[in-house]
Each structure stands twice: as structure tokens, then as C-alpha cells.
């Protein structure tokens, strides 16, 4: 394509304006979080207060166990990621490389559930958690998320791309199917596993409706639920609220900058869902 300077200038203009719109709310969030309350309620608003005040952050931690929210979210996300990767890769292997009766019908059933909105299972899952006595425990957030039809589908699709010759060669060498899974398929699938891992992390870390329904007591809350709870309590103390918001988005944003490629791939995976 010929270089068209006019078009490129317009492109820069559009992208720049867009990027500013994307970043501005984040700057506004950070700047408010360092202001004294008297500086928050001024018109016209200033970008930065007279000096950087850390006290809003201290207040967040004084009033709310944000550290605990973090540990809760981290624990839940980690267990869900590991669990879901384990169940998805195992079943994905069975669906892609083993022959057993009803295999294709069963897989079609898995696929069929992908189009069902998440909210349809909410009420029965709540009843089930209540029966198990898991309401207000982290089990209710961990155990039902250990299996996903989408993860299973994804791992199967990826495993199908691995040449069957490798499997045959390993079988001749006396490898059991578990050996094939563990020594060949898993090491070859690292990129797919990393991508799916990020995808699961995003879903688990940012999940809101399930913690909202299953968790009642403050020490058990996850980061998004804790933040929403805090917003309900201090709906006008914007400086403290913004400090809490900064704390809540910071870890994900750091992870995003460190592993942008995986995040982009992991998030776009959800486009395949449904």
C-alpha cells in the first residue's frame, strides 16, 4: 500500500484522542486518591493537589481489611486456575486422544452448555451451596469453578493439533496414556496453558456476582466485592474510595504490563465463547 500521509495523520489523531479518553479516568482516579478531601470538592477540578497525600491509602487499610481481600482473591484465583487447568487438560486429552463409548455425544453436550448464560446456573448453584453448608465460605467460590466446559473445549482443540505420530512413538516405548499426557502433551501445550490460565485468572479475579451472592462476612470478601462494599459505606469520601480502587486495580495492571501478550490472547479467548 502506498503511504498516505493525510490518512496517517488522521489515524494518529483518532488514536491519540481515543488513548487519552482511555487513560484519563485512570489519571483522574490516581490524582483524586492523593488529594485532601478539601481539594477533592473544588470546582474547577485540579489535576493534582498541593502535595501528595498518602493518608487516603492508610485510611483504606485502617477501615477495611484490604490486605485480607487480596489474600482471599489470590487464594481463590490460584486454586481455581490450577484446578481448572488440571480438569480441562485431563478431559481435553480424553476427548482428543482416547476412544470410548459416547465420546462425541458427551463432547457435544459440553459444547451445548457453552451457549447457556452463566446466570442460568446461579440459583441452583446457590441452593447446592446452601445444602453443602458452603455459604459464606470460599468453597462456594472455588469448587463450582473447578470445571469449565469452555476450558475443556479449548484444551481439546489444542491437543488435536499435536501429531498422532508422537503418541504412537511413545506407546511403542511403553508409555501409558498418562505418560503421554504428562510427558508429551502438557509440555507441548505451555502457550495454550498460559493463555487459558490468564483467561481463568481474569474471570476469577474480577468475578462479582458470585461473591455477592455467596459471601456475607467482611473477612471472607474478595477484592471486587470488598470494593463494592466500601463504595456502599463511603459513597461520598471520593479520595478514600479512589485510593481503594487504585489498590484494587494495581496488581492486575502490573500483571498486564508484565505479560501483555498473554493477556491480550487470554482476553480474546472469550470471543470464542458462546
Amino acid at each position, binding site marked *: 500500500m502506498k503511504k498516505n500521509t493525510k490518512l496517517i495523520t488522521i489515524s494518529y489523531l*483518532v488514536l491519540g484522542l481515543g488513548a487519552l479518553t482511555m487513560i484519563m*479516568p485512570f489519571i483522574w482516579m490516581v490524582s483524586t486518591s492523593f488529594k485532601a478531601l478539601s481539594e477533592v470538592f473544588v470546582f474547577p477540578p485540579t489535576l493534582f493537589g498541593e502535595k501528595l497525600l498518602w493518608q487516603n491509602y492508610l485510611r483504606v487499610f485502617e477501615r477495611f481489611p484490604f490486605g485480607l481481600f487480596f489474600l482471599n482473591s489470590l487464594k481463590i484465583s490460584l486454586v481455581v486456575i490450577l484446578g481448572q487447568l488440571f480438569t480441562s487438560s485431563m478431559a481435553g486429552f480424553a476427548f482428543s486422544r482416547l476412544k*470410548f463409548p459416547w465420546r462425541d455425544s458427551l463432547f457435544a453436550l459440553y459444547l451445548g452448555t457453552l451457549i447457556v448464560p452463566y446466570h442460568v446456573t446461579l440459583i441452583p448453584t446457590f441452593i447446592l451451596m446452601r445444602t453443602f453448608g458452603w455459604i459464606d465460605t470460599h468453597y462456594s467460590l472455588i469448587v463450582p469453578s473447578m470445571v469449565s466446559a469452555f476450558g475443556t473445549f479449548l484444551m481439546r482443540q489444542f491437543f488435536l493439533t499435536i501429531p498422532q505420530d508422537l503418541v504412537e512413538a511413545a506407546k511403542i516405548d511403553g508409555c501409558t496414556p498418562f505418560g503421554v499426557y504428562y510427558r508429551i502433551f502438557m509440555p507441548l501445550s505451555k502457550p495454550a496453558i498460559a493463555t487459558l490460565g490468564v483467561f481463568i485468572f481474569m474471570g476469577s479475579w474480577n468475578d*462479582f456476582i458470585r461473591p455477592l451472592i455467596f459471601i456475607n462476612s467482611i473477612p471472607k470478601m474478595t477484592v471486587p466485592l470488598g470494593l463494592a462494599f466500601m463504595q456502599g459505606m463511603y459513597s461520598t469520601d471520593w479520595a478514600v474510595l*479512589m485510593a481503594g480502587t487504585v489498590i484494587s486495580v494495581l496488581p492486575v495492571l502490573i500483571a498486564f504490563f508484565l505479560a501483555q501478550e498473554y*493477556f491480550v490472547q487470554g*482476553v*480474546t479467548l472469550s470471543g470464542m465463547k458462546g
Partner: protein
Amino acid sequence: MERFRRIIYCDNFWALVFLLPNLLGFLLFILIPILASFGLSFTQWDLLGDISWVGLGNYTELLSDKIFIQVFWNTLYYSVGTVPLGIAIALLLAIALNQKIRGVKFYRGAYFLPVVSSTVAVAVVWQWIYNPEFGLLNYVLSLLGIDGPSWLTSTVWAMPAIIITSIWKGLGYNMLLFLAGLQGIPKTYYEAAEIDGANWFNKFWKITLPLLSPTTFFVVIMSVISSFQVFDIIYVMTEGGPGRSTSVLVHYLYQNAFQYFRMGYASAIAYILFFLVFILTLIQLKRQKNWVIYY
């Protein structure tokens, strides 16, 4: 020993080993809940008393429930507000990003910030932006000589406010899907068109848009499906208010199930939602051939 060896190499045995943990979870937390929800939608139950069978009672009640009808229209309003505009802006950005531009990674990163941030965090920040007296938005509007409304406390402006924030949050995601689609269009088409003397608009209208139609179609359907399921942002920003002006299907489902404890009624709402999503998915699967131009 020989028998043991046969078991070790028998696929059925291994299939069971590999499948069991997944299958248990699938049955208990996915398949059975989906079926149970359907069953519950024909009953009346408050979690404590007895379950009673009401047949189609919940569904007929929904059809005459004024709140449900309003909530349904609100969902459509949200959908119509977010999808076309969000997609048009995302396409514009993707086309700009597909030019010979420096700093593609920077722009992609910037547009992805809202995508990776949690909806709750985004909603809280935007609540502050929408603050009528000291918020950023009304300040920017005042620079343009516009007297901004009291966004989230106004029955007229609360939904547009939520729509703006939703578009802002989802833009980077749709942009990325379009970018992938644009990069799939062979350069030779543009070169041939240039030899024939086509201008920028001709190329866009006759090449880019038709060849991008599979992506566009996919993005439209996916966006509509997800817009029907909006909840987090509305719960945090307005809790469906003021009045019922921003209450949507999932919000009403949540209220019925976990505030009014009408499990059967809420399940019926869930199945109406499922039905709508199902229709959209069918459209995507079946009509794709007719609406979309492949090359």
C-alpha cells in the same frame, strides 16, 4: 500380569481416569443446574417453605408484570445503546491502528487498560467522573459551554451514563477482534484497487467492509449476547435506579432470587434470558452464510 497390562492399555479405563474429575464437576455444577433451573421455573419456592408446582404460572405472570416489561425494555435500550456505537468506534480505531503507525503496542495497551480492570473498579471510578458538581465529565462539558446533567441520579441520563461507561470498557476488546480481521484481508486486493484508481473511500466501502463482514457479524452477535447479560456495572453504579430506570434482566433476576426469595420466578427470568441468547446464537450459526461475504 498380562491382565494388568491389558487394563493399562485399555482406552476405556484411561478415559474414565482422565474424565472423572471433570465429568463430576460438569454434571454437578453445569448440567444439573441448567436442568434444575428449568424445572424450578415451573415452581414457586422461597427456599424455606415447600415447593409448589405452578406450571406456566411464572411465565404468564412475567408477561403481565409491569416491572419485568420495563426491565426488558431497559435491557434492549442498553443493548441498542452500547452495541452499534461501541462497534463503530472500535472499527474506526482498528482501521487507524492498522495503518503504518508507530507505537502500536502502546495504543493497544492503553485501549486494553479498561478491559483488564474489574468492572467494579471501573464503575466506582466512573461514578466519581459522573459526579454532577465536582466530576470530571461535567467539568469538560462546562469548558464546551454545556451545563452537564446530574448523570446517575437522573432517570433520563442514568442509562446513557452506564452506556458510555460500558462502551469505554469494551472498546479495546472489540478493537482487537477487528484488528485481527483487518490483518486477515490480503494486501493484494488493495494493490489491485489502487491500480484501478480507487480512492480511500472506495477501498473501504468495496473491499474492507465486505471482507470484514465475518468479523463484524461475529462481534455484533457476541456484543448483543453479552449486553443482555449486563449486571455488575449497573449494580455498582445505580443499583437499577433511580426508580427502575436502569434495572435490567439480570438485575431483576438477582432481586427476585436473592432479595425477594422468589426462586421459581427468578428461574423463569433466567430461562427467558437463555431463550433470547439461544435465538441469537442460532442466528449466528444459521444465517452467517447468507449475510456474510467470504473470500
